[in-house]
């Protein structure tokens, strides 16, 4: 309940959220970094940086670059590892903050092991598996790019945890709805979309990619209309909840994702520009509902009036 009298709570795949605003994996560190700027209890919760079995050091620099209304990143797998996260990062998070842990790996059984270790840990409200990682055994294509590989990944993660399981989809696919259906079919409790869009930026003075890694992921406002389309397409295809991600920087943006069919949203790149933005988005969403006569934010989910075909 916000002070405005609007019921802002939503249920995301079995995770009860104070309000629909989460922050996105890889853009919010392990949560405590934002404490100078934002009381995390103002937002629905956060998704922590994706974790691998072992700590990883990531790619050489440059890892980031700017693009029109967007940024590119190739951070790769840098993270403290799942055990260190549970041991030192999780206890540092203030009580009352909803934490979703994110898993990523390069092979299916390793994903499952990360999920197993995160499963049942009291402070973790749910898991998100990041299916945008290159799968070593499929020759480097992303798990989320092949329905059969994705199905095996989700099934294996499903067996590894009994808690709420979200699958974060890659946007680099022909049919996002098909990928969403695969997740639903294999027992995921919800899907998160989209991850960054695969992209390339080139420095014409060096005639090399600007990122040391070559390719990178495009995020920020530029991808929002693509994300919104994919959320809408997924929402037409599945009945498990959707967490909408991509270029969200204002309450209005977040409302668009709810209208398109998302139950909750994740704020990513915008956190870098304004570290308290997720709190402002939460407040602004409640204000929108109130101004438009909605008693519950949840009533906006999927309320888009799409023209008849």
């Amino acid at each position, binding site marked *: 309940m916000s002070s405005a009298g609007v019921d802002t709570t939503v249920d995301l795949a079995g995770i009860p959220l104070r309000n629909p605003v989460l922050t996105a994996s*890889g853009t919010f560190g392990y949560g405590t*970094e934002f404490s100078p*700027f934002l009381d995390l209890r103002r937002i629905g919760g956060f998704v922590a940086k994706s974790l691998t079995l072992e700590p990883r050091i*990531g790619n050489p*620099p440059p890892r*980031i670059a700017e693009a029109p209304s967007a940024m590119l990143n190739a951070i790769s797998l840098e993270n403290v590892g799942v055990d260190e996260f549970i041991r030192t990062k999780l206890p540092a998070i203030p009580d009352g903050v909803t934490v979703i842990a994110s898993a990523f790996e390069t092979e299916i059984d390793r994903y499952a092991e990360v999920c197993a270790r995160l499963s049942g840990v009291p402070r973790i409200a749910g898991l998100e598996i990041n299916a945008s990682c290159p799968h070593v055994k499929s020759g480097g294509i992303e798990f989320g790019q092949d329905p059969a590989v994705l199905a095996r990944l989700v099934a294996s993660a499903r067996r590894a945890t009994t808690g709420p399981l979200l699958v974060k989809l890659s946007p680099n696919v022909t049919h996002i709805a098909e990928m969403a259906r695969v997740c639903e079919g294999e027992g995921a409790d919800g899907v998160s979309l989209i991850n960054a869009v695969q992209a390339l930026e080139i420095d014409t003075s060096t005639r090399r990619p600007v990122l040391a890694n070559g390719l990178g992921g495009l995020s920020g406002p530029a991808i929002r209309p693509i994300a919104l389309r994919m959320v809408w397409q997924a929402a037409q295809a599945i009945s498990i909840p959707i967490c909408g991600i991509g270029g969200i920087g204002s309450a209005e943006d977040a409302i668009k994702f709810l209208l398109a069919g998302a139950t909750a949203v994740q704020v990513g790149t915008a956190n870098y520009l304004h570290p308290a933005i997720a709190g402002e988005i939460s407040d602004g969403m409640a204000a929108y509902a109130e101004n438009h006569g909605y008693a519950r934010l949840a009533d906006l989910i999927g309320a888009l009036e799409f023209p008849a075909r």
Partner: protein
Amino acid sequence: MSTRMSSKVSSDQWDGALHSPIRAVADVVSNGDEGLSSRRLRLRVPDFPGFAPGQFAMLSPGSLPAAPRTDPLLPRPMAIYRSFEIAGGAEVEILYKVTGRGTALLAEALPGQQVSIVGPLGRAFPPPEPRERVLIVAGGTGIASVFDLAAQIDSSHQPTVLLGARTAGDLMAVDDFESLGIEVQIATDDGSRGTHAQVTGLLSEALESAAPTRVYTCGPTPMMHRCAQICAQAQVPCVAALENHMACGFGVCLGCAAPLVRGGYALVCRDGPAFDAASIDWEGLP
């Protein structure tokens, strides 16, 4: 250390108090051309908690006008040049050069307009050891990063500032350094001001004296790399403040990674910007 006019703090003091960063909407007080190629921006920052030498802020010039823009998108890291306490906050000064789109947009921020600021960020320069002589070597926009260091260092350290630039017109803040009453030496590549040499040449000369010395450096990577080599050879500790590209400035995007000699990466925004120059894998920096 709190926001101050120009009162010196003893060097062992500045590292003590960490200033929890804030995000604020700052009014532009002034934003003028400094002659040469630099500009001086003064912002009125509510609740500014003060800063220590070496800390920086992230500025977003395009996000607050009546027509908010998402291009350019990322905030720009800028050293906090100095600050002046005022009721309810501080006036924060930034000295900058227009080198691209973000700084050009910053240059358009007029009095009456607003700029979003996040800071202070990063760690302070480590203070010198009690009896060390201090040499500060800076070039390019790095000159702005070392001004408060020069201002804070106790005269017992006999601080000397060595400033380098391609031409006289590329220098910044020379008058400010001189008005601190400390020794300032200048080298330009074309000889248009000071010695006709690279600033690292001045460093080599200065290190010929046998006194225990600590070097601080900030500037273009090749310059800092050369300083690090000279200091390593002279067995003098060297602290380098890196200027990697940044997206967040407070340790969450992992974008500002600097490769370390011992393997792995440090985050320039969180673990730096100042590092022991000997710990940096200079070849691996972009």
